[in-house]
């Protein structure tokens, strides 16, 4: 799955939620969710990813069940969970570098390509930074274990500083990447464009066709 062309990965990631929303009737969201879950199961550290999806979806389910009758709430909840689950899968398989290479190979400028790919690339860096800040806080007496309240307080103490320092570093990062030629007026040389195949192109067009068909079925 991670060997697929990034465009194919993106197409699949768009297809599942689109079908969940567009195809009328109850089975559709359940099927798409099942598909999304099985995709996630194929990724490393799948249980943790699924747990994160469940944690993110939980508050929404609570609100939905409060506001809607159970059947409708379930429908909307399944659609939403499909979206979250697909996003989790995409996060696991989409490599930012490959996406940038794919965009560049198709003729996009390096700067625009990096705008998409760069945000993904920032995730491990932000995660590593958050860990360092959390450790520094613990070494200064912030208790991170021991009960829900303590944990929430620890997370709360972490969020603002990480966001602030990411924003602060953004300026430096923009400068830093300019120094490595990102703003150059020439077209970037693709180093290792991801392989594509006729079959994958077919799958992508098929995905688009499926979405269009679903939309047509809904509107009709």
């Amino acid at each position, binding site marked *: 799955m991670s060997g697929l062309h990034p465009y194919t990965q993106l197409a699949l990631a768009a297809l599942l939620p689109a079908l969940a929303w567009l195809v009328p009737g109850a089975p559709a969201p359940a099927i798409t969710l099942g598909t999304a879950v099985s995709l996630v199961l194929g990724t490393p550290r799948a249980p943790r990813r699924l747990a994160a999806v469940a944690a993110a979806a939980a508050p929404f389910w609570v609100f939905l069940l409060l506001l809607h009758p159970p059947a409708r709430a379930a429908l909307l909840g399944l659609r939403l969970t499909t979206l979250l689950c697909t996003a989790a899968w995409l996060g696991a398989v989409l490599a930012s570098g490959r996406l940038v290479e794919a965009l560049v190979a198709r003729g996009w400028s390096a700067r625009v390509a990096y705008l998409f790919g760069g945000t993904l690339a920032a995730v491990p860096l932000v995660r590593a930074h958050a860990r*360092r800040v959390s*450790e520094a*806080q*613990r*070494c*200064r*007496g*912030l208790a991170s274990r021991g009960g829900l309240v303590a944990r929430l307080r620890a997370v709360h103490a972490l969020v603002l500083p990480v966001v*602030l320092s990411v924003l602060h570093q953004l300026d430096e990062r923009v400068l830093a990447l300019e120094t490595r030629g990102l703003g150059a007026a020439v077209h970037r040389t693709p180093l290792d464009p991801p392989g594509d195949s006729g079959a994958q192109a077919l799958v992508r067009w098929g995905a688009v066709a499926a979405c269009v068909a679903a939309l047509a079925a809904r509107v009709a």
Partner: protein
Amino acid sequence: MTPVLSCDRVSFAYGGRPVLRDVSCVVAPGEAVAVIGRNGAGKTTLTRLIAGLERAGTGTVWVGGRDAARHRADELARRVAVVFQHADQQLFARTVREDVAFGPRALGVPHRESAIRVAAALAELRLDDVAHEHPYDLPAPMRKLAALAGALALAPVLLVLDEPTAGLDRALRARVASVIRTRRAAGCAVLVVTHDIAFAAETLDRALVLDGGAVAFDGAIAELCRDPVRLRALGLREPPVAALSRTLDLPGRPVRIDDAAPIVAACCASGGLPYIGESHGQT
């Protein structure tokens, strides 16, 4: 006298790769120890074990009378204050003053006592005039000092600093040196992980050298500085004053600027040095 830090045959591996092998050392109150070694020798790992962020594979680490393996990092913060490398990127409050106050508040120090400690730490590092600023509005070297102030406010018995002088100019290094000296005089032990052997020679007494995760030397830093062959073998640069002493064969082989200066003055006066400097009467 109970040691402030006691490592007994500590080993640690990271993902199967041994990082520390059989490391033992004892640090008494008021001692100033430099932990020196190449990149990758295990210095930062040792600080993480002392801070309670990692558990030793084998052996024990006793910090301020507590077994580091049985306590969390925030519990050990009552005894040991650690300032990590890149501390300038770990500040998290809205002003420098608030950041320095974070530690004492997290430890439950009463408000008045906390305010006193914060004020003292800021004054000691001469950060009073930037205390109200947002940390990220300050240049990186000043943020490093702010992080150090935060550690001082914890009033530890053991202060552990990881590369405190990296990127600092002479004046700011002098502030760090002064803080180390006053803490030692107050009975606090200081452990400084550093590449800057020159700074270590000027400010600290003892050197603990790690090579490939094992202790390769544990003794007087002056003795280490006077041994260029050993320094080379350990991948360390000979500090300038020691190199000067050796090259000019200065009597006593001083390793500190203040020790070398009068000897150089005397040698110049007696014409014993190739590079003759004329005295102009100042001291």
